C-alpha cells in the first residue's frame, strides 16, 4: 500500500475516533458548560465493559456494543446525578478540576477491578485489509469506526439543532439559572448531556479496543490529546469536533511519517498551543465563547 493511502486511511480512522470523543466533549460543554478532562477515563470504562460483555460473557458483537453504550449512558448520568449536580452553577475552573479528579477516580476503579496488565481481546472485526484499490486498503474494523463516527455525529447534530430536547440542552449551557427559572428541567438535561458524553467516550473505547490491547493507563491518554482537536474545531460546535478531529489526525499522521512515532503527541499539543494563540474559538466555534 502506498504511503499516501496509508496516511489517508489512518487519518480517517484516527480522526473518526477524535470526532466521536470530541462530540461528547462538545455536547457536554454546550449543555452544562463543563470542559471535561475525564473523557479518557470513560474511554477506558467503555472498552472494558465491551470486552467483558463480548469476550467474557459471550454476548454477540452488536448486542454487546449496544449494552456497553447503554451502560455508559447510565454511568455518565449517574455521575452527574450523584456528584456534579451538587456543582450546578459553580465556576468553570471548579468544574474543570472536578473532572480531573473524576478521571483519576474512575481510572483507579478500573485498575482495581481489572488489573493493570494489558489484555488482548479476541479479534472481533478483522484487522486484515479487504483488498487494495489504487494503493487504498481498508480493514473492516476501520470501516466500522468511520461509520460509527458518521452516524453518531449526524444524530447528535440533529438532536441539538432540531429538537425540543436539543434547544433545552443548549438553553442550560447558555444560562443555567435562567433555564431553571424558565421551567427547563436543568438536572435532567445535564444528566442527559453527561450520559451522551460518556456514551461517546464509550463508543470510542469500543472502536479502540478493536485495534489495540486494553490498558487502563495507556487508553485514557486519548482523552487529553482529543482536546487539541476539539479546540481546533471549536469547543461549541459538533461540526467542529469532526473537522478538528480529522485535521488533528492528519497532522499527527504527517508528523509520524516525517519525524517518527514519538512526535505524534508533542505535535498535537503544539497544535493546541497554536490554536489558543491564534484562533482560540477554533474553526467553527462562535466567537463569543472565548470572551471573559
Amino acid at each position: 500500500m502506498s504511503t499516501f493511502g496509508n496516511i489517508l486511511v489512518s487519518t480517517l480512522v484516527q480522526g473518526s475516533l477524535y470526532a466521536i470523543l470530541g462530540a461528547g466533549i462538545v455536547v457536554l460543554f454546550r449543555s452544562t458548560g463543563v470542559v471535561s478532562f475525564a473523557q479518557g477515563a470513560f474511554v477506558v470504562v467503555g472498552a472494558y465493559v465491551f470486552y467483558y460483555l463480548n469476550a467474557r460473557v459471550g454476548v454477540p458483537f452488536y448486542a454487546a456494543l449496544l449494552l456497553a453504550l447503554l451502560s455508559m449512558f447510565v454511568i455518565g448520568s449517574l455521575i452527574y446525578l450523584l456528584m456534579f449536580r451538587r456543582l450546578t452553577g459553580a465556576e468553570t475552573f471548579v468544574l474543570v478540576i472536578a473532572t480531573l479528579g473524576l478521571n483519576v477516580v474512575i481510572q483507579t476503579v478500573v485498575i482495581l477491578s481489572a488489573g493493570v496488565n494489558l489484555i488482548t481481546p479476541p479479534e472481533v472485526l478483522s484487522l486484515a485489509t479487504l483488498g487494495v484499490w489504487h494503493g487504498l486498503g481498508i480493514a473492516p474494523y476501520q470501516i466500522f469506526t468511520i461509520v460509527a463516527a458518521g452516524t453518531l455525529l449526524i444524530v447528535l447534530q440533529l438532536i441539538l439543532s432540531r429538537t425540543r430536547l436539543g434547544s433545552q440542552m443548549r438553553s442550560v449551557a447558555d444560562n443555567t439559572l435562567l433555564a431553571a427559572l424558565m421551567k427547563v428541567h436543568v438536572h435532567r438535561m445535564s444528566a442527559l448531556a453527561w450520559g451522551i458524553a460518556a456514551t461517546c467516550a464509550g463508543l470510542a473505547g469500543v472502536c479502540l479496543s478493536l485495534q489495540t490491547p486494553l490498558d487502563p493507563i495507556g487508553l485514557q491518554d486519548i482523552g487529553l490529546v482529543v482536546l487539541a482537536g476539539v479546540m481546533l474545531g471549536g469547543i461549541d460546535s459538533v461540526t467542529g469536533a469532526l473537522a478538528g478531529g480529522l485535521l488533528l489526525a492528519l497532522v499527527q499522521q504527517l508528523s509520524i511519517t516525517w519525524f517518527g512515532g514519538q512526535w505524534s503527541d508533542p505535535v498535537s499539543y503544539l497544535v493546541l498551543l497554536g490554536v489558543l494563540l491564534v484562533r482560540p474559538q477554533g474553526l467553527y466555534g462562535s466567537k463569543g465563547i472565548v470572551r471573559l
Partner: protein
Amino acid sequence: MSTLRVGAKSGKEPIGISGTGPRRTRPLGVSSLLVLIFVVVVLCVVGSEFDLYLGGLVIIFALSALGLDWLMGRTGQVSIGNGPLMAIGAYTTAIISRHPWAPFPVPVIIAGLIGAGTGLVIALPSLRLRGFYFALTTLALQFIVQFAAETYETDSGNFSGLTVKPIRVFGHSFNYGVGYVALLSVILVLTVVLLSNMYKRLPGRMWRAIKESELAASTIQVSVRRWKLTSFVGSSGLIAVAGSLFAYYTGLVSSDTFTLTFAISFVVMTIVGGMNSMAGAIVGAAVVTLSPQLLTSISGHFPQGSWVQRDLPAINSGLYGVLVLLVLLYLPTGIAPSLQNLGGDGAKRLRRLWGDSPAAPITQKTGIPESPPTNGLHSSSATLSPQAQRHGSGDRSPAPSGEERDERSTLVQGSEARTLLTIHELAVKYANGATALNRVSLSIRENETVAVVGRNGAGKTTLLRSLGGFFGTEKVRRRGSVIFDGHEVIGATPVQAASLGIVLVPEREKVFPSLTVAEHLRHLGNAEVARSELPEVWEFLQRLWKSPAGSLSGGERQLLAISLAASLEPRLLMIDEMSLGLAPVMIERVTEVLLGLRQRDRLSLLIVEQNIAVAERLAQRVLHLENGELRPGLGTRPVDGDL
C-alpha cells in the same frame, strides 16, 4: 468600585454586586506561622530520618503549591502547570549546578528566572481568554516539557535521569536531616512573609479585583494585562524555584517524576487545603504528600497478599481524585479555611454562652410596625396592606381603609381569591456577609398584581430571587418562611420553584442568546399558549422568528422573555426591572402586554420597577423596598436619580 472592597476590613458590603463573591482573603496569621514552626521543631527533635525526609518534601511541595495558590486562588486562573514548571526548574538546576561558576544559590535563582520567563510565554494566550483556556495551555506545556525532557535524557545518554550534587554552603554540605529541614523551613517562612505582604497591599487588591471581574476591574482603571502577567510570571518563578530545590533535595532529576499525575497533585493540594489561603496550600501539601505514606503503613496491618496490599500504588494514586471530589463536593472552601471557620464559630458560640454578645443572627429592627394579626395566614399581609395598598388603575382597586379594604378586595376578586404566597420575616444573607433582605413580610393573593419599587441595591432582585430559588453553589442563607400555594419554598432551588409555578424574568440575562426566537417559544415554552395568550406579541415576534435572541434589542428581549414566561402558565409571574433601559414606546407596549396578562385567571404578578408611574398603573398595591426592608409605598417617591 465595590469589587475592590471585598475583604477590606470592616468595609460594609455593597449589596447585590458581588453577591456570591469569595470569602475574605485569609493571610497566614501569626498563630498559623507559630504552629508551622512548632511542627518543624517537633519533627526535627523526635522525627526519624525518614520523617525528616518527608518533612523536607512537604516544604518543597508547599512552596510549589503556594505558587499555584497565587495563580489560582488569587488571580482565578486554573493551571495544571506545576509539573512542567518544576521540571524546568529542576533540569536547569541539574545542568547548571555542575559548573564551578554556579555555587548553591545561583542555579536556584537562574531556575526561578527561566521559570518566570516560561510563565510570561504561556500567559500570553490566556490574557484575553476564559479561565479554562489557561488550563489547556498548561496541559500542552506538560506534554511538551515531558517530551523535551525525555529527548534530552536520551540524547545526552542519561537514561535514568540527571544526578544533582547536594547543596554546599561555606564548605558545609547539606544532607538529609535537621539542617536541611531547617534551611527549607527558613525559605518557606521567608516566602510566606513576602507573599502575605504582597497580598495585603496593592498587588493583592489588584489581583482580587481581576479575579472577581476582569471587566469591572478594567473599567476602574486596573491594568488587567499587567497584573495578570505579574501574577503568571511571579508564580511561575516561585514554582520553578521549588523545582530547583526539589532537584537538590532528591539528587536525581528524571522525566519519570514529572508526570501529569504529579502536576495534578498540586492542584489537589491547593483545592484540598483550601484556595485563597496560604495555610491551605501548606496543609494541602502535607495531606497529599503524607496520606499515601499513612495508607502504606495502614496497609501493613492487612493480611498478606490482600487486595489492599496488592493494589496499593493504584489506591494511592486514586486517593488524589477522591480527595479532590470530596473537598469540591462537601468542603468547597477546603480543609484549612473550614477548620478556621470551625474555630471561629466555636469562639463565637463560646462568647455567646458567656453573654458577651447576645446577638441573634439577625438583629436589626424590622422596620415594619407589629400590629395584631387579623386572621391566620393573612397576618403579615395585614401589617402591610393597610398603609401599603394603593388605588390601582384597574376596576379591582381596593377600598380606602384597613380591614374593610381587605374584605372588599377579597369580594371584588371573587370568592376564589385566596392567598397564593405568604412571606414571613424573610431574611437573606450572602456568603460574603452582606445582608440583602431583612425580615420582609408580604403576602400576595391569587389574581393580584403587586409592584415593588426601590432604588438600586435595595434588595428587590434578592426578594425575587429568593422566591425563584437559589442554587446550592450560590451559598445564600435564608431565614423565615415563604409559603407558596401550601408549600414551604424557602430552601427551594430554581428547578423546584419553577415546577411549583413560580417563574421569574430576570433583569439582565432574560433570554438565551444562542437560541432563536422560534426555539424559545416552541422548544422551551408552550407555543400554543404563547399564541393564544399574547397574540399581539406573537405577531410582533414573527418577523424575528429565526434570529438568535442574542441579536434582539432590549425591548424585543423583554417581550420575548415575557411571552416565554407567560407560556409556561405560571401561578406567580415575577418580572425584575420591567422597564429599565427601555424606550418610552417600548415601556408602553410592555405595560399593555402585562395589563392584558393581568386579566388571566389564577395568575399573580410581582413586578419590580423603578418607574413609579408604571408601577402604579400596573399594580393594585405598590410597596417600597429600602435597605432590605419592605415599607408601604404611599407618599414615597423613589426616583432613578435619587441617590
